[in-house]
């Protein structure tokens, strides 16, 4: 789960990394109140779970109260990469003399934590790594040993830091590693960390993503899902315990596994357009499949439903009862095609067949999709 910048800032502060004070505003009036408390000039920053805020006009420096209100009004009306701006952060403008980039994340190749430090902050670290690789240092970290202070200092010297700056920046990096570990982060990034004209080292922007599977042990974060999944159907999917991704077609997909769901998308996309990706995971019950049918049919203009399930961990015969119950209670007029294999397959076919669902008489998803296409053709 991605955190808003202000939530990330709070985590940094908890682990001892100073961040500027801030006020959150949902209206221009609140932004003005915040600016009055903090003192001008201030920076207003859109709080959205995506990058590209600068380019979209979501960040503005204001030097008068009129400017604060006007900028807040404008930013609160923006939608940045599909994310409507509901909150703007107001924070004092900080004058810096030097910027750094630092991050702790999980390296894709090795599957171990990696700390990354650059003496050129503020811009994309990927760009720096490409153009000036000597200014970026990264180091794998053993989760058992952690990031040793001596390693953090060596990284600082590695990007050319000297004197007192070494220990000050190393100290921030060690604290960032604690954020990563203590809150089960997938990434904890500060871009930029600045040295101010007064000689303080402040984090001006935080990007933190927490592992969804660890949220049960972080009640202290008090995170709500509501604003984080802007798509209504995707949020409903999450609420009933399945993964739903809305696509732009009209063939609904229900699969009992992620790989099978993606393969179904691949095959359907050859000649039709999937309306969604949906995978149930290993928790199928009659009730879940009832809800899942309801979910995929909420999208406008669905022309058919393609069910692709395996009985491995899932009791698919139970699931079939849920599908059938839904169809009996609602007027489902579009064709429903089901491919069901594995444990209890015969029982599952029986339930489907007796209730007007087209059972795929083959082991391949391709044949199932062919059947679906034929049914749509003859329905015309």
């Amino acid at each position, binding site marked *: 789960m991605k955190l808003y910048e202000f939530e990330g800032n709070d985590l940094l502060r908890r682990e001892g990394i100073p961040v500027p004070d801030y006020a959150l505003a949902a209206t221009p009036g609140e932004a003005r109140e915040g600016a009055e408390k903090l003192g001008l000039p201030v920076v207003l920053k859109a709080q959205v779970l995506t990058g590209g805020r600068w380019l979209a006009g979501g960040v503005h420096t204001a030097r008068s109260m009129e400017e604060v209100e006007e900028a807040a009004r404008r930013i609160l009306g923006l939608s940045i990469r599909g994310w409507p701006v509901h909150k703007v952060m107001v924070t004092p403008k900080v004058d810096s003399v030097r910027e750094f980039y630092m991050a702790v994340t*999980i390296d*894709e190749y090795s599957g171990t934590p990696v700390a990354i430090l650059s003496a050129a902050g503020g811009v994309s670290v990927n760009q720096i790594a490409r153009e000036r690789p000597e200014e970026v240092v990264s180091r794998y970290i053993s989760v058992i040993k952690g990031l040793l202070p001596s390693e953090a200092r060596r990284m600082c010297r590695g990007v050319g830091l000297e004197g007192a700056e070494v220990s000050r920046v190393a100290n921030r990096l060690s604290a960032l590693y604690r954020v990563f570990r203590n809150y089960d982060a997938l990434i904890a990034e500060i871009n930029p960390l600045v040295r101010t004209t007064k000689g303080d080292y402040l984090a001006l922007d935080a990007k933190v993503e927490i592992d969804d599977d660890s949220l049960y042990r972080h009640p202290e974060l008090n995170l709500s899902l509501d604003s984080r999944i802007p798509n209504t159907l995707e949020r409903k999917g999450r609420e009933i315990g399945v993964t739903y991704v809305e696509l732009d077609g009209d063939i609904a997909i229900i*699969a009992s596994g*992620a*790989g099978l769901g993606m393969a179904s998308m691949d095959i359907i996309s050859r000649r039709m357009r*999937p309306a969604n990706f949906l995978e149930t995971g*290993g928790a199928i019950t009659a009730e879940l499949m009832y809800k899942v049918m309801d979910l995929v049919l909420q999208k406008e203009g669905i022309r058919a439903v393609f069910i692709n399930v395996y009985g491995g961990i899932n009791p698919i015969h139970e699931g079939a009862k849920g599908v059938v119950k839904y169809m009996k209670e609602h007027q489902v007029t579009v064709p429903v095609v089901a491919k069901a294999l594995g444990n209890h397959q015969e029982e599952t076919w029986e339930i489907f067949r007796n209730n007007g669902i087209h059972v795929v008489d083959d082991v391949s998803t391709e044949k199932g999709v062919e059947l679906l296409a034929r049914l749509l053709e003859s329905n015309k």
Partner: protein
Amino acid sequence: MSILLNRETKVLVQGITGRIGRVQTKWMLDYGTNIVAGVTPGKGGEEVEGVPVYDTVAEAVAKQGAEASVFFIPPKAFKEAARQTIDAGVGLIVVVTEHIPVHDVMEIRDYASERQVQIIGPTTPGVITVGEAKMGIMPANMFTPGRIGLISRSGTLSYEISINLATAGLGQSTVVGMGADSVVFTSVPELLRLFEKDPGTDLVVIVGEVGGVQEENAAQFIERWMTKPVVTYIAGHNVPEGKRMGHAGAIIQGEHGTGTPQSKMAALREVGVDVAMYPAEVVELVKGHLNHS
């Protein structure tokens, strides 16, 4: 022959008294798996399907000689159970459990690697040596004995590919679900190495999906070390960027553009791997190789 598991392997089931543990224990026994013990803390002395249940792994190992263990335990219990199992000297662990925090996986991986334990998963359907034994949840009727090794990130797709191969008369030696999380214990190259050495395997099928760099890593290994032919299918050609497609590891990371099926397919093609565009095409590509040799 086979990799990881055979009909003699003495298997322990952890979480055997749970709803899923009970059902799957029966199916594993029906398949011929040599299950010698189960463990559920606090349930020692009970029996499930005639299998004795112990409170601790150490006890199950001491009394029944368990040498491999399959986990049907809740994610919260994983770290402690894994430590206990590694400490008891079990050499192979299959983690069916989904939704284990990735930091716990990284901790246990470091712990296990110092002690030479092979762990498969997490979020794996398990391992099946076809016609002999299975540790996990795969439906047995999808598999037929034969000489094709299969490695899959997705459980359901390992069934789909296996039943399609079987229907065409092409059986499997061992099928391994390597797990669908962003960090897994055993990588594709490690499994390829085992199949390369296995005299019972003539060809390996890799079923991948979007996200991560497992397939790219596999390509490097194949180029250097594999003499047996490899066929692959990568699921998720049209996946939108930045969306997690059910599996924790199945995501195309925006800015960097890593994890795309296109980059995976290109890397694999470059080292001579036959890449299927759709699952059923795997069967044709496998046939092509076997007719050739």
